[in-house]
């Protein structure tokens, strides 16, 4: 796997999630960060830090990215969300435009 095809998402606690660029681009916000013209550090290093998003939530979001790709390709499974996570996840999803 080439390095350019991956991105690193960093949670508020500093945990790093390395995922496929295609998956991360499910989020309109990340898509804009990675493709916007000009030399944002995000575009150059393929790294995005989310000081507002906790590790648990960011992990769930990464799972969602992959689930979404699968769902779009026709594999209809359910994406389970624990009730305890709904509010935090809701706000993060809203911020990430997913």
């Amino acid at each position, binding site marked *: 796997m080439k390095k350019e095809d991956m991105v690193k998402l960093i949670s508020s606690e500093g945990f790093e999630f390395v995922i496929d660029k295609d998956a991360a681009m499910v989020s309109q916000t990340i898509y804009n960060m990675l493709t916007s013209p000009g030399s944002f550090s995000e575009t150059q290093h393929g790294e995005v830090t989310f000081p507002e998003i906790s590790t648990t939530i960011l992990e769930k979001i990464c799972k*969602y990215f992959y689930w979404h790709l699968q769902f779009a390709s026709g594999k209809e499974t359910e994406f389970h969300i624990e009730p305890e996570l709904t*509010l935090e996840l*809701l706000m993060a*999803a809203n911020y990430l435009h997913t």
Partner: protein
Amino acid sequence: MDRGLVGLCIEAACRSSESVEKWRRQRRSLERLPSQLADALLRRLLARRLLFPSLLEVFKHSAEEIYLRGENSVNAEWMAYLGAFRNLRSLNVADCHKVTSSALWAMTGMTSLKELDLSRCLKVTDAGIRHVTSISTLEKLCISETSLSVDGIPLLSSLKNLSVLDLGGLPVTDQALYSLQVLTKLQYLDLWGSKVSNNGTAVLQKFSKLSFLNIAWTNITELPNLSSIECLNMSNCTINTILEGDGGKAPLTKLILSGATFINEAEALLYCETSFLSFLDVSNSSLQRFCFLPLMKALKHLDLSSSAMRDDLVENVACIGADLRYLNLSNTRVSSAGVEILTGHVPNLEILSLSCTPVDDIAVLSISKLPSVKVVDLSNTNVKGFIRQVGAEPDSVLSLEALESLKHLEKLKMEQTRVRDDALKPLSSFQELRDLSLRSTFLTDVSLHYLSSLPKLINLSFRDAVLTDSGLISFNPSATLKLLDLRGCWLLTRDAILSFCRNYPQIEVRHELAHIIPKDKFGSSRPSPSRSTSRTLWVNQQQGNIPISSYFEDQRLKYSREELLALQYSSLYLVSPLDRGITTSQEELN
């Protein structure tokens, strides 16, 4: 609900009362919740019947817009919580019958509220409005059909920021209206059914920004000039003159005079600038000559239903037809000759209603020459579906064939006509048709079979027909079909309908014996309090339990030909066409 993560989260949060319990303790998250998410979550909770007063508490910092219209449970306790919502901008509690004047006390002094709808809250009186008048930020207030008295109206004069005020159905007198003249920001004023008379109308001129005025069902006969008015409703008034007086002409775009009686037709609209008018409703009015119509060059929407419009006056419509999109001629004496006059003059006409007129198949030919038509209503007309031509071979042509030339035709209504099976054959090639309504005791399985080939059909109404079980089973609807209305098809059995529903679970079927709503639609749609769904639920449960028995054979055993004939005579339906229908079904069954 969209499949995005936001939608999934809201869905997960509203799955059950247990899931609500799990997240409602996260006080910090709830405070930070952006308002549009809070509002969406509230709406979903309400639709899932999971919202209760103390749960409202957690939204008091975040919610900005709350829509509770028609929720019977909303009472003083709910209002007590809502009164503490510091960022609430808009609250709709219309039709909430438990909202009383004292319940509104909790709203006293709310600081962000701009819009409040209390329409038809019957227990709200003058005392309740006193509480409301303490909310000085209000810009929009709807209190139509509350129990406000004439003494309560002047209290509203303290709400200086009001731009929208709905006082429909309230006893507003000339005196009371006079007290409201300080509300100079008013743009929208609804006074239908009030006691305002010609003496009070001068006050309306003080509202220099007024663009919408509804004075339907009042005794006003002469309306003075209001130079900013754009939309005027004087339905069911007796009209002498409209907007007569000095000053600039009003830029009228919408005029509703439905059911109005005109004292002098020629003078009534003499003072109005009608060349910008795009919407005119004169249905049910006393107009006889329509002499003002030729001036209304910009009309897009014209409702002449139940008026005295007739063939020799259609010329007045044709000459302003260039922009016309909607034309309603139902319940008039316009015949096929009148429709013919329109051809060539209404190039943009999209919606045409001719129901309850004496038009026949010649009109169908004329309609086929209207290039933009999308919706046609020919219900209750003399349309038979074929035109007899003397000496020609064959001696009759199917008139509906002509409509094939209409590339945009999406909706066709032909209820209660004398069209028979064979005349409907051309329908099978209507590629764009999405909506079709047929209702006749002349139609049988054959007609439904023709409709199998319509590729884009979404709604199909096939009522009162001699449709048999085998006709329904052999019907092969397009994948797009969502609604099949079979009410009045008295030969159908419950088993056949349920079996059809099992084969096509995406279709909602309506019939006296079963009303089946697809499960996915049932789950996501907001259950309205007025529509009882208990029966539907029952049907849905039953659906699963019915053994896949041989309903087909069952039918043959159930009725003999004699019994069917006996059934036929016991009904109110016409006799002759049924013979054929039943014969067909018997042949197919055997």
